[in-house]
């Protein structure tokens, strides 16, 4: 039994997944996390460092890491890459001016070796705002089709109303589960 098999077996027993939530600042990462966990969202402050939440969903234990997106924090993102099963990239679909910035950061991130194999879910957030880009448009703008190294999916959502959050997370969990829990 190799080391990876042991790791896999251990995770299988716990049904545990490590999920990293990243994106530019003001994208709504913390709001997504809190909304998903059923907490109040109108008292959220900009994230100074990071938030960790462990939550149960569909029998899985999800370790969610939400790291602040400010420019000065982005260089610390790499400290969180180890053992990541899933990556949630959150986009403010209404902030068109920074979409280019958003695209660049995402593609830099995906080159990271320690994230290889992680499933990527792109949340096109803030769809409750008028003028928000659709997930189809974002797929082009963010050049998602170019991604060949990760399983990916883009899902529109609104963290404020909670719409579509669940279907996004469910896709992510299914994809991760198919990868790490069914192999033996």
């Amino acid at each position, binding site marked *: 039994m190799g080391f990876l098999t042991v790791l896999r077996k251990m995770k299988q027993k716990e049904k545990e997944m490590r999920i990293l939530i990243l994106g530019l*600042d*003001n994208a709504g990462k913390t709001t997504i996390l809190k909304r*998903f966990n*059923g907490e109040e969202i*109108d*008292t*959220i*402050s*900009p994230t*100074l460092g990071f938030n960790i939440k462990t939550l*149960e*969903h*569909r*029998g899985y234990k999800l370790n969610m890491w939400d790291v602040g997106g*400010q*420019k*000065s*924090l982005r260089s610390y993102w790499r400290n969180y890459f180890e053992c990541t099963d899933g990556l949630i990239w959150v986009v403010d679909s*209404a*902030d068109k*001016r920074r979409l280019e910035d958003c695209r660049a950061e995402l593609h830099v991130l995906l080159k990271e070796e320690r994230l290889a194999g992680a499933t990527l879910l792109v949340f096109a957030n*803030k769809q*409750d*705002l*008028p*003028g*928000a*880009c*659709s997930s189809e*448009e974002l797929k082009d703008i963010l050049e998602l089709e170019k991604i060949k190294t990760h399983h990916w999916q883009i899902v529109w959502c609104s963290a*404020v*109303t*909670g*719409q*579509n959050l*669940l279907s996004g997370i469910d896709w992510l969990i299914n994809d991760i589960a198919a990868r790490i829990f069914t192999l033996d």
Partner: protein
Amino acid sequence: MDFMQERCDKITNLLNRRELERKLDIEKKRENKRQGLAEHENIDFFEKTFTAKKLEIENDLNSSLTMDSSKLANHFDMISKNILNLQKYVAASNLFLRTYDIKVCHQSLQELSSKARELEEKVLPKKKFGFKKKTMKSPPKHEDIKLNGHAKDEVDFCRRFINLNDNFCGYENKINETLVLENSKVFKKDVTLKDLECCVIKIYGTPSTIHMNHLKNCLILSGPVSTSIFAENCTNCKLVIACQQLRLHSSSDVHIYLHVTSRAIMEDCKRILIAPYNYKYDGMEDDFIKSGLDINTNNWTSIDDFNWLNTEIQSPNWNILKEIERVNDWNNFSLPSG
């Protein structure tokens, strides 16, 4: 001596009796707890609770059809919270459930949430859509769709509609102007202020968010913003703003009259002076209620500077604006020329 001995025995007896009573009591409590736990951890109990909760959510969903439209947003919010809670309950109970039960529960949960989504799309069409429709003078379209009875088509139509209209709300590339955005124009919108110089912008009402970029010598007066304000590259400006979060980047010489209900952050900023929000206009209290901001919670001094992580020494990049230097009457205020 005997007297002493007697007294000693008496006390020992008393203590022993108490000890016994205490132990019995603990045992009794433990027993109760065990019974309680077992009661909650069996399938019958779970099924009963689950069905009851499910019924409750279904009733809520049905009542949304006859509800006052102003309450609908909160109502759906509550429903989705309830669904989420139920989901958590299933997740917590899956230890003692059969695989089949879990499957059935998930199925009904999925049905509930899709039903909620459908209903919400049906009875609570996106606000901007309704507003646009009026200005475009095309009410018949809505009727057509209703006749077809395809709730989904309506949504698809709505989305395409938005993408065609860029829905830009705000101002860009202006010099030396005084501009006013009225209530109906900004309600729940993303307001953009970009490349402005020597302008006075007044925003009444409750935008969802404001983006400011490259403002120079400007005065921005705004009603309460329900989520965040994002400002970048502002120099020599006065911002009179109320919001849930403020994020200020790469700006300098800005005076902010701030009402913030959570916290504000700044990054790469210099010479920022902060004062409490003091803009007053008719209907402001109502706007605060509409925006969901608490008018009595103002953390205007809670500012985190990303370039100054020392909590003991005040950041050199911002300070509190002295009271005598504050502007108190914005209606009679004019920008210093030059």
